[in-house]
């Protein structure tokens, strides 16, 4: 057999159309096998004249290298396209829905309570809760509301026994804490309160309150304003303004009703704020000297402020919840929104 360029040409012609590894193997054997074309060429070397042997040998070596590397690369190509073929058979529809476990939720009132706590803790307030079942002394008497005081009409009370009642406000915690701790005091108390109010869209016989109390030397109305203003901005947004109007709670003097600028209309007036531009949040004021005296604090040495806001009210305003009854119904379609 003569060595000629056609061998290489033929090889490339054959390998060009190779589809799978077994065909490639056949070609490999045909060219590089023990009885293959390349070996046959080597065998011819000995039949050649001395002076041509070297040149011919180099040509065959060259051819072998070309064929080897070509088979190698074709093999790699075939393998990779085969692998791809296998993976493509495992194709999924990525638009199918994910697999879901039931996801939990925290009650919106708890969320609001946690947020209130974290804002006040960041301002250095200690957090308490206190008992639902209270003594008349803490709930009324010590708060400057003696028996038969007309102010008791403002809070219709559930009684469990003579002088034992369900707290109508978190304010008894003012007394409990002042009896326990010495000024400086900076605390909030959060918990459930009860009043004999019929259930409707804005009243509930049970509700939650956050009570605040700060007692120290020189605590002022200006401090009260700054504290509630800061709290309101953190709770309802930086643009929230706070409004104080004179009001009456027997355990503070001066006493104030506190409102925030309407979160819906920003103070321009809308149905939610009954066109007043403001939403009432709760009471506040300077701790009445009688209250301080009742717990053995000298009102000439220490002053304090206190406030009591409704948690449900905060939640309703913050999340636009129109009816207080939702909180206690616990419809999952409600719970899962927050």
């Amino acid at each position, binding site marked *: 057999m003569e060595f000629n360029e056609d061998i290489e040409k033929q090889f490339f012609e054959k390998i060009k159309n190779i589809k799978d590894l077994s065909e490639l193997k056949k070609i490999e054997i045909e060219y590089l096998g023990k009885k293959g074309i390349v070996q046959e060429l080597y065998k011819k070397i000995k039949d050649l004249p001395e002076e041509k042997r070297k040149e011919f040998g180099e040509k065959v070596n060259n051819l072998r290298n070309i064929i080897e590397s070509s088979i190698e690369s074709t093999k790699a190509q075939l393998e990779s396209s085969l692998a791809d073929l296998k993976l493509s058979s495992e194709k999924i529809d990525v638009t199918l829905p994910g697999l879901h476990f039931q996801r939990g939720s925290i009650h919106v009132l708890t969320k609001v309570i946690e947020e209130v706590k974290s804002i006040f803790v960041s301002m250095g307030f200690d957090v308490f809760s206190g008992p639902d079942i209270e003594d008349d002394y803490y709930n009324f008497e010590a708060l400057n509301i003696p028996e038969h005081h007309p102010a008791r009409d403002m809070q219709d009370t559930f009684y469990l026994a003579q002088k034992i009642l369900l707290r109508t406000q978190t304010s008894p915690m003012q007394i409990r804490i002042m009896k326990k701790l010495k000024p400086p005091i900076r605390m909030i108390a959060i918990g459930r309160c009860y009043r004999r109010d019929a259930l409707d869209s804005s009243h509930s016989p049970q509700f939650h309150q956050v009570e605040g109390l700060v007692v120290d030397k020189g605590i002022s109305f200006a401090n009260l304003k700054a504290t509630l203003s800061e709290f309101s901005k953190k709770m309802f947004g930086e643009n929230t303004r706070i409004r104080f109007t004179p009001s009456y709670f027997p355990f503070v003097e001066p006493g104030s009703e506190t409102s925030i600028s309407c979160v819906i209309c920003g103070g321009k007036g809308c149905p939610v704020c009954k066109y007043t531009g403001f939403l009432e949040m709760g009471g506040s004021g300077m701790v009445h000297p009688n209250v301080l005296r009742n717990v053995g604090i000298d009102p000439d040495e220490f002053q304090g402020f206190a406030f009591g806001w409704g948690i449900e009210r905060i939640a309703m305003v913050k999340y636009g919840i129109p009816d207080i009854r939702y909180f206690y119904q*616990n419809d999952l379609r409600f719970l899962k929104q927050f």
Partner: protein
Amino acid sequence: MLVSYRLLKELIDFSYSPNELATKFTHLGLEVEHVEHVEKKFDKVITAKVLDVTSISGTKLFKVNLLVSENETKTVITAATNVKKEDIVPYAMVGAKISDGRVIVEKYFGDILSQGMLCSYNELGLESEFLSNQEKNGILILPEDTPLFKNFESVFPVEDFYLEFSLLPDRADAFSVLGIARWVEIILAKEEGRKANFEKLQPKVQLEENLPNTPFEVKIADTDCAKFYSGRLIKNVKIKNSSYNLRTELYKLGVHPINNIVDITNYVLKMYGQPLHAFDFDKLKGGIFVRRAKTGETIKTLDGVERVLSEKNLLIADSAGAVALAGVMGGEYTEVTNETQNVFLESAYFVPSVIAVSSRSLGLITDASSLFEKGVDPDFTPHASNVASKMILEEAGGILFKDSVDDLRDPKKGVNLRVSKAVSLLGDEIKVEEIKKYFDIEGFDYVFDEAKNTFTVYAPTFRQDISIEEDLIEEIARIKGYNEFKETPIVSNLKSGSIEKIQEFNSFLRNFLLAYGLNEVITSTLVSSAMLSKYKLFNEEKTVKILNPLTEDMAYLRPSLLATLLEVATRNINVNIKDFGIFEIGKVFYRENGFKEKFNLSIFLIGDYILKNPYKKTLPYDFFYLKGILEDLFDELKIPMFFEKQSYPYLHPYRSAVIKVKDELIGFLGEMHPNIFDKAYYCELDIEKLLNNSSLEKKFTQFSIYPSVKRDIAILVDKDIEEIKVRDVIRSASINELKNIVLFDIYEGDPLPKDKKSLAYSLEFVSNERTLTSEEVDNYILKIEKSLIDKVNGILRRQ
């Protein structure tokens, strides 16, 4: 309290619209909740006089001839039965419009032409509460001196605005039209920068001098209970309906007319804030004494109730006994009736707390008591008698006597205000001149002591809310405006806030359960006995009862979280939400040497926790899912606990357990009784016990650097043996290298003997010193096998 805008304008000149006025009041602390506009809803209705009324035979109708102008009569057919000759009535002429929009037309009844209509209050669109019962039930009969042939709206104050005040108890001075007018004067004084002048608002009455003395002694016997008492005789009065003029005023005040004497006392109460009482003089004997009641003394009050009194009650008594509950309600026997000829008029100042106690001890709160208990104006009390007397003379005639008086009023006391205290409490600079200005605006008299930098303030007597320094500071803030003060953050030693332990722990529990896909609920602590009984949770001795519940379904405090949680479950299932896990962290209450409360945790599971999907099987909640949560929780809290079979009335009797820590019960869990819920799971834990036994402290523990060896074993044991015993036996082999025992299969049935079951465990061994060899592990298994044979008659199954 409703106040007529029209009436206010009659009393004081101002130019604010009703809404402007409402805003100003609210900013002063007199909250106006609502402004109601009462509009005229009729047209072409005039006052006419009834000439005669004849019944039309065979019908229930009446033919009424009316004089509708000086020389014109009309005939009207009516079904009303309360119209009689000489009555003055509102007559809607033909073409008139009435409140429901109807237009009156001529109409034949048989052969009689009806030329218009007589109107009831309803047809005129008037507020019914301002009218007497008689008027409500039929045609509105106007007072006999009502001007005739006038447009109805010109003789009756139909069109008006009513300001609805929501006043707090410290605003004693404002519970009358005069009181509200005084605050209008303060608004004006502030605007005009002058001192308020309340004098001009006072009714001016000058009685004749040299009146005969009332021949009756009055005496305040218990001097700590009343400070002023005036009693006056008015002889030969004529009790009748009030005149047109008075009726018009009563209408604006929202007062039901009764008779002239009662109407006058009511007028003075509503207009000036002084409750008065009129007695039938001829039924009084020997003199008037203001004294505390004796225990057991009785009086029949004019509401017809016989009341048994105590020393908490203050009485007006004559020499024969109680004639009125002082400041609360008169007695029936001495009440003014149509036969009364001689009236004894009382005007008094009772000590507020005495009336508060007296009225509340009887549960009897009246218009009078609610004014007295807040504090009326003691300076006006004597004058109120004059005002009423003059009106009685006008309305009822009679002979006036000079009042008998017992006057124990204290001289006006000044209240001191240190300027430094005002500055300190308000936290803002405030000048002496400024304070003077504010006190002037409120009409306070004062003396300023320059050296002491202190005011002594004499507030008007109607300002019973001013008794201490802080009250004056509130007035400074009120007039300056609460929102005019600066905001100053608290300056103090820096300290961080802390949260009490139980709240921190509850937050931990919440977040823990949230990770299991559970939803937190918050339910009512107030429940009904029926609801508790349904789940056999009611216990007469231990359940806390509310003495004065609002409704029966909120009459008890819950002893468990079960009932309300099931209610939430039912509510959701009813709206077709059927797969969920919910939990509550809330208080429960019980009686045990007094009233007790504690926090519990409850969990309720129902349906699937992996819902229908195209990839996996759905997975339902079950007993062991719930138990798994609890085991994880106790593990996290490092509480060693165990479960013991135990039945509860509301749980499946064979699928429930108690959870114990040492010997202490800490909670329970189980499948709900199928009678209550099918395939639902519940548990309830005592949070305080959980907290007390727990440790949330975390510390690093060294783990082995060598790989572990796992071996699966299957053990054949008696079917009835509790699995925990088998696990305990494996543990009891005390192999330090055994780090983990996982049960992964339970098998009963062929080819096993009927009374046997097979338990398959995966055991994990690891040593801290070296990699364990297969021989070592084989030896451990042999050791375990021996324990199993000895203790539970177990057989290791080898394949």
